[in-house]
């Protein structure tokens, strides 16, 4: 057994937790835990599955942060524009 463990996305999940979307990050960390324990017990398939899951949640965390940021920008610029025109 000199196989490499599948990537567990632990660091990425921590960063997602802190910078944006705590729920996604927490799920990512739980999946990272499964990657490590399953690999430790020799369940490579299960570890790979958990790795894919962790990657999915990390991606959703990043995508949702981008969407929220975009909506926020639109919101701020709309309000600013309205205020500038004196309608608000």
């Amino acid at each position, binding site marked *: 057994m000199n196989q490499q*463990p599948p990537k*567990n996305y*632990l*660091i990425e999940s*921590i*960063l997602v*937790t*802190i*910078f*944006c979307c*705590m729920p996604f990050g*927490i799920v990512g*960390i*739980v999946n*990272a*835990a499964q990657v*490590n*324990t399953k*690999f*430790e017990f020799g369940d490579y398939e299960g570890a790979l599955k958990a790795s894919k899951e962790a990657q999915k949640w990390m991606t959703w965390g990043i995508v949702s942060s981008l969407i*929220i*940021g975009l909506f*926020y920008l639109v919101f*701020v610029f709309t309000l*600013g524009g309205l205020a500038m025109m004196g309608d608000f």
Partner: protein
Amino acid sequence: MLKKITWFAIIFGGLSLALFYFFINPNEVNYLPECPLYFTTGIYCPGCGSQRATHQLLNFNFFGVLQQNVLFFISLLILGYHLVVTGINAFLKKDFYNYMYHPKTPLVILTIIVIFWILRNIPYYPFNLLAPN
């Protein structure tokens, strides 16, 4: 080609964000987004204070980072550890064990996050030191 564009976008976006948070102190302006959880419920999440902490970090004020979010500082240390170990293993062809792949590490980190989350919401000294300001 598409990959190049993606990398360019990531680097350009990262640099402009870094410049923005270097010059703008989130405490002094009111147009930056607030944490959705804090905005709706008044409860600090584990990541609250990260924008202010980023500003302090980019200005090399490490005590300021600790004041805003202790977890931000811890995660910086973890990120540094991970980068150093993987970097040494990749470039110097070594095989050091990376504790990020230890079965207990994610659970320890999860416990730290949850305990930190609870403690920073207690509005009394000394726990209120953990809350961002």
